[in-house]
């Protein structure tokens, strides 16, 4: 009985491993395939040629543009979400429910529908493409940064700030030497999600950039919609996975450094097991 159940449990874990890993498998194989005939199950020749050709073409510029977009969204949406969350958590504003509803509304709305209408307005006002794209993506990211910081403030003790003030700390010192360090894991998580919103976006860039603002997702999409481009598609896609992966690892390291008890054996009562906060990058 217990043995059967254990075997079934193992089978379930194995199936879940396959479910989560298989979809990305073609990327690894195709990106490293220098030649792969239509019938064989594995590439005949391996090499890094596909990856280097990404940079030889205009892939490098697209990567820089995507990095700029992700960074701009993170730099704007993280502090905005943090101040909104603080005001909501400490009940400093009138109508907190209405404000929360407004800030979370973008999650429930299809962004393409908003952008299709906005397109004409931005064109008539002569708003530059990058500015319009950033503005829309910041609004898309705000629900995530606000939600995450709101959750962080729920576990945050304002008494630390009062204590520091009692000991004579200036408002600036309270902000930079008490509040910021205590909230830094949550802030890093929020910035990560906001970066992902900008880094992964396709439809907003497509609709507002009018084909002039070529980011990495635009290149991936144009390669993937053609036929016979498998190596290019895989190489571009792999490149698109590198920054999120690096950021995820550094986020994990940051958490580990700030909370060393969690490294080694994970404690069972730990609420946050994953370095990634509970939110979907609309990504």
């Amino acid at each position: 009985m217990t043995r059967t159940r254990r075997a079934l449990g193992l089978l379930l874990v194995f199936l879940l491993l396959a479910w989560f890993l298989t979809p990305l498998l073609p990327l690894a194989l195709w990106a490293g395939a220098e030649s792969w005939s239509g019938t064989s199950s594995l590439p005949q020749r391996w090499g890094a040629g596909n990856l280097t050709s990404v940079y030889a073409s205009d892939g490098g510029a697209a990567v820089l543009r995507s990095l700029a977009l992700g960074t701009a969204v993170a730099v704007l949406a993280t502090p905005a979400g943090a101040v909104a969350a603080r005001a909501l958590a400490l009940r400093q504003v009138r109508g907190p429910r209405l404000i929360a509803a407004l800030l979370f509304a973008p999650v429930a709305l299809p962004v393409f529908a908003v952008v299709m209408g906005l397109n004409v307005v931005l064109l008539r006002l002569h708003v530059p493409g990058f500015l319009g794209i950033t503005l829309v993506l910041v609004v898309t990211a705000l629900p995530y940064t606000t939600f995450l910081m709101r959750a962080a403030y729920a576990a945050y003790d304002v008494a630390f700030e009062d204590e520091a003030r009692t000991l004579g700390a200036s408002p600036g010192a309270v902000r930079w030497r008490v509040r910021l360090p205590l909230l830094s894991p949550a802030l890093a998580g929020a910035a990560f999600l906001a970066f992902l919103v900008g880094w992964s976006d396709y439809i907003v860039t497509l609709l507002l950039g009018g084909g002039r603002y070529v980011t990495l997702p635009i290149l991936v999409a144009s390669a993937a919609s053609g036929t016979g481009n498998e190596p290019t598609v895989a190489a571009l896609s792999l490149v698109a996975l590198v920054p999120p992966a690096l950021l995820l690892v550094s986020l994990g390291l940051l958490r580990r450094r700030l909370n060393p008890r969690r490294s080694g054996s994970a404690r069972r009562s730990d609420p946050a097991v994953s370095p990634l906060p509970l939110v979907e990058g609309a990504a």
Partner: protein
Amino acid sequence: MRATLVVAAPVLAVLLVVVTGLGATALQSLGLMPLTGAPRLSFAAYTSENGELLTATGLSLLIAAASTALAAVVGLATAVAAMSSPRTRRLLTGLVTATVPVPHLVGAASVGLLLADGGLLSRWLGASPGTWPSLVAGRWPTAVVLEYAWKESAFIALVVTATLATRLTGYHETAALLGAGPWARFRHVTLPLAAPALGLASAITFVYTLGSYEVAWLLGPAYPEPLPVMAYRLFTSTDLAARPEAMALAMTTTVIAGAAALAALALVRRTAAWR
């Protein structure tokens, strides 16, 4: 006072983008903001497509419902499996955490390479030419649903695991002491505790898949199209008269998404574990 000023910036940004954007979409769908000529109120954009609007709506609902259902089942199964031991939990949480930041477009590109005719699976299973089912760009949106379900199951698993991790252990021990078997513990302890998080995460998934463009565009057939794909095609059409129809499709998507979000919120608030 200062707090109100500070919150004003993000709130104004949301209002500016959402109200201006949706307002302009609604006005254009009603012929009140034409690219050329004088504005004239008309509902033609909502009725002129001879059932195309209905077909697109049906397909969109099908994709969103199927993706969400599959993602919820796999996500919940992952969260429950993660609770079995600390090592399994680390493994599955790591896997799920690595999946969530993958851009949907990259996921779609890779799923295309996996499931297309001549893709990885057809090679590995040794399918002879012409026998592979058209999972990509076929009559049914199979690849589209699988890509959404894959990515969103990771999201749902992450949310539900975090909820269960903080609450489950104590309840489980109590229930086991009182003689509850595994099924009874799942049915009467795990499921009620997971319900609010599962419900909200599923609602976010449903709304997202309903309004998302690139996966269905890349992996779906040329016809029939779901709402966002058809809307984008009409939006970029050289025929400017198609603009109001594109906007009508966008408004339809918005109304369905908004209604689904509100309904889900109302349902989740009625669950026992909602605080």
